[in-house]
């Protein structure tokens, strides 16, 4: 129950900063560039450069680093897991041996390498979602996807689906918590028992959650039709996205840094 409230990954924090005011398309493209170069580079130096770059971004964004790292906490388990798997599962020069478990030099390097990659990946995407409101994020995605309209990409529909999904994540979390509390008050118990029992115990949460979600979807559809929603065709936007000089400069800077990181290292 506690976990639900500690998810800061994917949460928008409004501030007045350079990063916040960048065009969402630029931010998405920059984030993509960083991710691609994370997978291309072969030396630790590359991570250092990209890591520093993202950290500078976080500082400029005026979001407290504590908050960014809080989001990382939920991913920490996955990072540790990959590190351990690589540590023990890679063949090579043995550094340390404990009966059948052996740590190899190659394993250590590979493990650290992948961990760094995951770490910076989450950092970069957190920076994107922390500084971009869900609305402008999906606006940006819609605009970017519409480049692919000629091959039949339903850009608007995808963006609309994402907007609605993002909009309802907090609602669903809140509702899950409410239903859990209600069932606990009726004697349900979610913390004890074996795996089989625990799974069975989820039924009193999942069924009401689904019932409510379907009902809400139905109501939303009716409300949208009542407001004359008819898809993306000819739809205008209240907030127009505009590329400014600072956006172009950011894109150029990101390109240079990611190319240096992935090509030179």
């Amino acid at each position, binding site marked *: 129950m506690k976990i639900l409230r500690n998810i800061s990954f994917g949460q928008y924090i409004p501030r007045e900063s350079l990063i916040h005011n960048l065009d969402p398309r630029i931010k998405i493209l920059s984030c993509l560039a960083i991710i691609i170069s994370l997978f291309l580079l072969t030396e630790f130096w590359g991570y250092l450069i990209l890591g520093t770059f993202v950290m500078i971004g976080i500082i400029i964004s005026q979001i407290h680093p504590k908050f960014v790292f809080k989001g990382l906490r939920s991913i920490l388990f996955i990072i540790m897991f990959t590190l351990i798997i690589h540590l023990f599962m890679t063949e090579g020069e043995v550094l340390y041996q404990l009966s059948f478990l052996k740590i190899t030099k190659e394993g250590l390097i590979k493990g650290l390498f992948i961990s760094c990659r995951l770490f910076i990946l989450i950092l970069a995407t957190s920076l994107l979602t922390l500084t971009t409101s869900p609305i402008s994020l999906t606006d940006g995605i819609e605009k970017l996807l519409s480049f692919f309209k000629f091959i039949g990409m339903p850009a608007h529909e995808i963006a609309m689906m994402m907007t609605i999904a993002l909009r309802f994540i907090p609602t669903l979390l809140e509702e899950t918590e409410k239903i859990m509390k209600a069932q606990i008050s009726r004697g349900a118990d979610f913390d004890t028992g074996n795996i089989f029992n625990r799974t069975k115990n989820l*039924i009193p949460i999942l069924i009401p959650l689904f019932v409510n979600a379907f009902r809400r979807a139905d109501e939303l559809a009716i409300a949208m039709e009542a407001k004359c929603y008819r898809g993306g065709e000819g739809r205008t936007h209240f907030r127009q996205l505009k590329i400014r000089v600072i956006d172009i400069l950011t894109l150029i800077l990101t390109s240079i840094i990611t190319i240096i990181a992935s090509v030179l290292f």
Partner: protein
Amino acid sequence: MFIRLENVYYTYNLHMPFETKALKNINLDIKKGEFIGLIGHTGCGKTTLIQHFNGLLTPTSGKVYVEEMDISKKGIDLKLIRQKVGLVFQYPENQIFEETIFQEIAFGPKKLGLPKDEIEKRVREALKMVDLDYNLYAERSPFTLSGGEMRRVALASILSIRPKMLILDEPTANLDPQGRNKILSEIKAIHDNFGITVVLVSHNMEKVAEMVDRLLVMNKGEIIMDGPPREIFAKRANDLLKVGLGLPQVTQCMYELKIRGKDLYTGVLNVNEAEKEILNNIKKLNSQLKKYERL
């Protein structure tokens, strides 16, 4: 003393950028058998407060005692507490999940590990308490019911645990007047017939004031008034209006007459009492008038 709160504070998202101080220095005693109305604006902390009564929330600071047991202590069996303190959430129909009404109401007793015949006995008893006919309803799907009926089934699903105390969070929200009166009269009957301690949460004074023995008025996370409704309406009507909580219509009417110079008692709860009070007042005036005429 059934429930006792001492200097309870509660803050949501403590130490986070958007922390909310939902409860501030709450001190409260609830005795066995009381019928309490908890009134306050939306967002004043009513739901937060009642979740402290059965240990769903633990205070940021301060103490909560249920039957003299400090429930924030480690090793306390909260399941036992929740069995004693039944909490019916707002829109309880949103928690319904079973295939039949019988199973829905049997959920709590089953979790208590009761034998089959005892479970059936409790389901019958609970359905009776909310005035639904066992033979007609037990095998129906709860999802085919009307809103008001669904809510009564949800209420029954708490009653089947046989709590000593019943807390209802806005039980009348979103119901039509008929459904509202029905559920309120059932709650009143449950209190009167079974001696269950009841806390009725509402953002609306109307109806509630007439039913309860004691009103708790909350504003911005604090309890600002605590006493019998008559006393509160008689002495603190203007404070109630100041924080924007209305009076029941009749009481409001008496209050308006009073501030226009009539010497009236504003602690009335229904039309009959108001009528009596006004007639008394007129009689008094008439007799005074006669005295003057004689002079």
